[in-house]
């Protein structure tokens, strides 16, 4: 008798399991059907060219209507570094600060009218793009370099650059190295999973000298390797080197060589042009505000300006950009200020020379298209 009872129970469990599997199959096939077709199409295309739109469709989560999702959710999901002073780090109160963080806040202000409505996700160099592709975050502002392969094969879309950087070399002042050309056969600390790794190899190759890379996971590891003499030089973006130099105990020098171009800016998923435009124009708004002389303290004085260009900028009724309101620029400027303010607040204290990171009117290359 008892045995029968057990068997019956098992049979019931078994059929429930079968039912669940069957339902599961149904669900996934429903969802997967459109993707599958494009996926197969993409696969056959693989033979001739890599990197066209069809190829990337199955790589990236269907972007959907990101703006509506963000507004419904009431919070912007922003992927940041979280451990890079000046760009994004956490202060003693647990608040995020930095240049990247300010752009997260600016997008949140434009869409939600609340710069604090941001949920930050700390990402490593290895996980950042997957997090964006899979839709775990809405926008990636994590000192990422805009390159052709990341724009193409990875299925990302890069908005206007917020900081122009370049890889540099940091050495001990008493090492006697005057330029990278002197550093034949040295050991160089370099972070894994970055464009710097590749650029370093190309640069040394072009000079016809050799080096030995010592891969490190983060800046804390560099500090210990550098102070213990485990590496002769440290390669990363010059902004990173400057902040390292400013806080490091020993006497170090940044060599003059600039080993690569590193335009750092926000990235979004391919396929949601409206949201991409919002991020793009959020960055431009900070450039344009600086050009007009508008900052976070005086923006309200400009709202009724006689200057037609400024009036259009602060009350944009024509452009058709996907911002929910016409005063998006006002929201952005009130939240984070113009580019100069953002720079002075975050990068300035690190003592990094501005270089090209200023308006075209003062000798830089920042240029915001007109709102018209």
């Amino acid at each position: 008798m008892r045995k029968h009872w057990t068997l019956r129970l098992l049979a019931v469990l078994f059929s429930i399991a079968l039912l669940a599997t069957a339902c599961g199959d149904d669900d996934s096939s429903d969802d997967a059907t459109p993707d599958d077709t494009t996926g197969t199409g993409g696969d056959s295309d693989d033979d001739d060219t890599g990197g066209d739109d069809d190829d990337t469709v199955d790589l990236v989560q269907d972007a959907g209507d990101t703006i509506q999702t963000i507004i419904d959710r009431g919070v912007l999901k922003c992927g940041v570094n979280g451990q890079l002073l000046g760009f994004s780090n956490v202060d003693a109160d647990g608040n995020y600060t930095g240049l990247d963080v300010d752009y997260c806040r600016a997008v949140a202000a434009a869409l939600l009218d609340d710069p604090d409505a941001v949920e930050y996700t700390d990402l490593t160099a290895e996980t950042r793009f997957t997090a964006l592709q899979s839709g775990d975050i809405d926008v990636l502002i994590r000192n990422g370099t805009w390159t052709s392969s990341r724009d193409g094969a990875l299925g990302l879309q890069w908005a206007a650059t917020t900081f122009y950087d370049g890889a540099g070399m940091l050495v001990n002042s008493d090492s006697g190295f005057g330029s990278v050309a002197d550093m034949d056969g040295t050991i160089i600390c370099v972070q894994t999973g970055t464009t710097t790794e590749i650029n370093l190899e190309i640069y040394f190759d072009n000079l016809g000298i050799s080096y030995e890379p010592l891969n490190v996971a983060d800046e804390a590891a560099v500090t210990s390797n550098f102070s213990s003499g485990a590496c002769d030089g440290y390669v990363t973006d010059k902004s990173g080197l400057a902040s390292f130099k400013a806080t490091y105990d020993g006497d170090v020098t940044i060599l003059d060589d600039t080993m690569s171009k590193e335009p750092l800016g926000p990235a979004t998923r391919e396929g949601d042009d409206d949201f991409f435009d919002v991020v793009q124009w959020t960055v431009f708004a900070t450039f344009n505000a600086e050009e007009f002389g508008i900052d976070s303290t005086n923006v309200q004085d400009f709202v009724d300006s006689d200057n037609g260009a400024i009036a259009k900028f602060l009350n944009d009724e024509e452009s058709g950009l996907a911002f929910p309101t016409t005063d998006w620029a006002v929201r952005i400027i009130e939240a984070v200020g113009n580019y100069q303010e953002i720079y002075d607040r975050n990068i300035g204290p690190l003592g990094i020379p501005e270089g090209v990171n200023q308006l075209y009117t003062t000798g830089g290359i920042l240029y915001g298209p007109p709102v018209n």
Partner: protein
Amino acid sequence: MAQDGQTPPGLYGGGGHMHTPIAADAPPRRGAGTGVRGVLRDNLFKDTKNSILTVLFGAVILFVLIKTFNYVFITARWEVIYNGPLEFYMVGKDFRRTGISYEMLWAGIYTAVLAMGIGTGLGYNEESPPMRLGARLAMIGGPLVGIVFILSMTRTITPTLLTAGAGGVLWVGGQLGRRMPPVVRRRSGWILLALTFLAFGLITNFTPSNIDEFGGLLLTIVVAFAGVSLSFPVGVIMALARRSTFPLIRPLAVGYIELIRGVPLISLLFMGQFAIRFLFPPDANIPGPIFRAIIMITLFSGAYVAEVVRGGLQSVPAGQIEAGKALGLSPFTITRQIVLPQALRNSIPALIGQFISLLKDVSLLVIIGLQELLGIVDVVLARPEFVNQGYVPEAYAFVGTIYWTLCFSMSRAAQRLETRLGVGTR
């Protein structure tokens, strides 16, 4: 630690009136010299070779001790722990955002400690051999040093008092568990479960999604605890399923175990965190990152627990099951009342090893951007006041001490449990 070599015989024997006082593997006591000098001569300076080794290793140990002392008390710059960031190490950087008060958190901790105390009290039985003083010291002394070190980083007396209070609560729980009348004792599982849920509710302010703002030690413990308590039932069920003669159950269990064991935990966590989104529509409401991590750790650990328990199941002689059948018991009763208790008792050493390893596996969460105890170090070291100033050794030494305290306590508690249940002696 020095008396470690001598404790096992004391632990396994020593005055129990049921068992023989000396376990089979106890080393015979040699050199019964008299007084301190006699003991020294017999054990350390027996002949020339012996004396040279003693002096050599004595010098090495002395050197290490002096260096350690020098580092801990003189050269180390502990301000990277106590001068502000201690809160980050303990509860993470986002804890304030939850609005959970520390009173609430401590109430939750006390509830959990009470449950642990009752649990240990329930395991007490009159027949188990009492612990020798040396064993007791070894059990309490190590973690105590760790706790004192951690508490020395606090700036007010409150955390110390609260921790001491937790010790009191543990004792009260133990007494409660011991004196529980049999009627209540039979339902003790439900009481412990209710207390655990109450503790979790208090810690998260009865809003489970708050857990996503946790970090530091709190996150490590919550994830490890959830992982241990969820992967245990999963493992037991899978182990039983793998021995099942039912045609479909067995391949399913084998498939699950072999699939999960063949994949590194990092890739599972990565899948659960990022890749899982590809399977859902973009606006789907899927659980928060920490719940996903707990699910993945549970699945991972469950597969290992299943194999450990299967080993235990195989150690139960077939005669036990046959005897149960002869008495006309149902297969369910045989498994529950005869096979499992023996199998689980035999699995304890390996299970504890698995759970200690799970606790340390939680540190892999740093890969997916969750800052548990180890990952929070990077966040602290990126703060303007500490960045690039070589605070790495201090921060990792502190975190390492916490890990060691946790793991050592687990290991000792397990040893105590083994003694009580008489593992290896019957």
